[in-house]
């Protein structure tokens, strides 16, 4: 299996450990990643506040590049994933918009490229099975909750998540690794997103509460699949000593990948694994 890889800005900045762990896990699973050449920012959670055309146009450029590569997109950042899917849907449903892009890029643009987040790929039966074969380190003592936040889930007509109030993709992957996954009621609540930059008190309020709720559920850690969720929960939990893992880090660690130690080193709350 081969993907056009769209890492996004966070993964080459504050969440390099997500990028590194994802690449390592893909290699172990036999998935080939070809980075989209000259990819650009998707607009994240900001551009839609300024302009609706740019909200579609910026991710559409990456969609176009992947189309030229003839490969489906793999986007590990929740915002990139949502924005590219949103652009694709808008272009497919709106012929006028498609024609406008056709003339803008002077290329025949189909906008039919498939867009995946690694959660959707790794939770497929074939990769669940493959993951189980790769387990070298048992994690059966670990009790965790899975946290999705917003952009992997909402709006469900764009993300096509299995259940927008109680998704199970991450749970399936973690359970395959033998981890004890605890059910809790806060998995799709917001962490405060990009408010960390200007209104950190808002993020502190939401993220601290999420970590408290995880603790009350009996979890020893939280698993996430979004760079902003990881940063907010890790930075703004206020002395609760709750490690926040990327699902790819736990997969890599359980597969016995040695670099896992370096991924964990970059966390604010250092995981007790490794």
């Amino acid at each position, binding site marked *: 299996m081969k993907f056009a890889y769209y890492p996004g*800005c966070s993964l080459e900045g504050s969440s*390099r450990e997500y990028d590194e762990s994802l690449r390592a896990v893909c290699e172990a699973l036999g998935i080939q990643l070809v980075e989209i050449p000259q990819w650009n920012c998707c607009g994240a959670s*900001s551009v839609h506040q*300024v302009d609706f055309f740019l909200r579609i*146009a910026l991710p559409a450029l990456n969609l176009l590049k992947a189309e030229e590569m003839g490969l489906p997109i793999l986007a590990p950042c929740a915002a990139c994933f949502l924005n590219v899917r949103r652009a694709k849907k808008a272009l497919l449903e709106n012929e006028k918009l498609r024609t406008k892009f056709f003339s803008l890029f002077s290329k025949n643009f189909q906008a039919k490229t498939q867009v995946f987040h690694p959660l959707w790929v790794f939770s497929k039966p074939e990769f669940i099975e493959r993951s189980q074969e790769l387990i070298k380190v048992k994690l059966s003592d670990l009790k965790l909750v899975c946290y999705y936040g917003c952009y992997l889930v909402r709006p469900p007509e764009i993300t096509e998540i299995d259940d*927008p109030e109680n998704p199970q993709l991450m749970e399936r992957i973690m359970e395959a690794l033998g981890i004890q996954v605890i059910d809790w009621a806060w998995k799709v609540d*917001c962490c405060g997103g990009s408010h960390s930059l*200007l*209104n950190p008190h808002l993020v502190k309020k939401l993220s601290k509460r999420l970590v408290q709720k995880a603790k009350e559920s009996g979890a020893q850690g939280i698993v996430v699949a979004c760079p902003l969720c990881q940063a907010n929960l890790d930075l703004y939990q206020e002395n609760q000593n709750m490690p926040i893992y990327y699902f790819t880090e736990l997969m890599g660690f359980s597969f016995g990948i040695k670099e896992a130690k370096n991924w964990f080193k970059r966390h*604010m709350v250092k995981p007790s694994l490794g």
Partner: protein
Amino acid sequence: MFLKEALPELFKCYQCLSCTLGCPLAEEMDFKPHQLVNLLILGKDKEVLNSLTPWICASCESCEVRCPNGVPLSELMDRIRQRALKEKIYKGKGFSLPLIFLKEIKKRGRIHEISLILGLKRLVGFRVSMEELRMGLKMFLKGKLRIRPPKRVSSESFKRIFEEVSF
């Protein structure tokens, strides 16, 4: 033009409060989401544009997903923000992020986190709390902050996109 004219779906709202009850930040807002909808229906755009609510909203879209009548609340928040920015009504600090974010994208095609933070500070002031300083230092020592900006992304198509808009 009134904001409600762009969003006829607003009139489907029967004030059930699902949006406000599910909003994680409602208690921080001057007008709650359902009150904002009501004000728009009444044509009170001025109050809405001067409200802090759109800049407190984190765009988590819980309100829109839970609305039983399909009122597009996240599009509504965006339209209020876009109009406020156009009319240069700057409330709180929140308005500066989308402006600086877009400027950064236009400049290098990707976001370089340190440049983004510096750009924001330039606009809202350089005062840094001890807590922010401690956090920044810890992030730096953990290797979380990339010092060198990424390589500039530029293509004809990328430039053409920005010729279409007035930013």
